[in-house]
């Protein structure tokens, strides 16, 4: 009898714990703050930013008291396709966004060739500097943001790997595709097995035939 009582107590504790967990999840869901970002990405029709309500900077460096955030869109540049390169500049001392810079972009290809592009500030979005470029050779490119202003010139570099196609990407991309494919296959397997089970006859015998004791 005492053992049964202990058993019931443990079960009621378990149920209480599950209730607390569900309450905590509900509270988290209701109390989640919106992670707003100044000005958004400024990419028209960018549903990633719109849907996730978070910023999506892929890299950032500090240079001469400036925080330089960087992203490319699409994230994985493809040879021959246009890729948007976006930078955001912020002062590390004051936290203010820095506009009015005369910026330039230097892109060094894996074969050593260099290209320079002007990096104008995006109209209507403070401290956003953006350009689009078509990457030619495959491999890791060095992308250098350079401010040529009269105040404090600074520069910082980022690395970006350019692929032949979306299916010849880096390991995170391939892992992503592989996982989604595996999930699809498992779902398909489950669906087929479930439908088959509806029409299959029950085989003779069972894995365990004894009756259950409560």
């Amino acid at each position, binding site marked *: 009898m005492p053992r049964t009582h202990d058993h019931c107590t443990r*079960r009621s504790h378990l149920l209480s714990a599950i209730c607390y967990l569900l309450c905590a999840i509900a509270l988290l*869901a209701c109390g989640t703050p919106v992670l707003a970002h100044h000005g958004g990405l400024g990419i028209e029709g960018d549903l990633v930013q719109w849907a996730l309500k978070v910023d999506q900077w892929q890299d950032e460096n500090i240079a001469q008291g400036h925080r330089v955030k960087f992203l490319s869109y699409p994230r994985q540049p493809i040879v021959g396709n246009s890729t948007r390169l976006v930078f955001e500049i912020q002062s590390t001392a004051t936290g203010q966004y820095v506009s009015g810079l005369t910026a330039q972009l230097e892109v060094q290809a894996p074969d050593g060739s260099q290209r320079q592009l002007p990096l104008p500030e995006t109209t209507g979005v403070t401290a956003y500097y953006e350009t689009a470029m078509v990457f030619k050779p495959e491999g890791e490119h060095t992308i250098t943001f350079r401010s040529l202003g009269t105040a404090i010139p600074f520069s910082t570099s980022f690395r970006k790997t350019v692929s032949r196609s979306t299916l010849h990407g880096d390991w*995170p991309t391939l892992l992503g595709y592989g996982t*989604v494919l595996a999930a*699809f296959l498992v779902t398909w397997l*489950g669906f087929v097995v*479930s439908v088959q089970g509806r029409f299959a006859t029950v085989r003779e015998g069972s894995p365990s035939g004894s*009756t259950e004791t409560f």
Partner: protein
Amino acid sequence: MQHFLEYLATLLHLVGMLLLVGGHIWFGFLTALTERRQDRDGARFLATQLPFMATVFGVGVLLLFGSGMLRLFVWGEPGLIFLPDPYGWLLLSKLVLYMLIVLNGVLIERRYLPYVFQERPRLSGAGTELHLTAVWSQVKLRTRLNLLLLLIVVALGEALRYSRL
């Protein structure tokens, strides 16, 4: 159109969660209740409803997976699940757990569901009646495991809202 698809995917995801997670919570709660009260008739009633519940859970799985994929395709970023950002790792964890849940569900449906009941001669000797077998315990155990995994997936889904791409 894209906004509509995003809204539709969210709605279907919620309906899928109601069916799959809600169904597992209720099933777990009711089986725990029948055990606690030693309610053999209640357990038999739940066991007879298993095929219907399996169908409901299956529809929930399809809704969750379909709506999740729809959202990924609507966002349309190469790489799909946003690795190697924290968001991507959380999504990867969700997908791996989702696969475990589906495989566990397949196992329950194929290996155990057909054998929950066993025909036995009546005590009076006239005809036969259905008895719950030990397989019922396995069904309960594995369904609770699925419930645990589902709660972790829900928690990971909430964590996605905090992760920054």
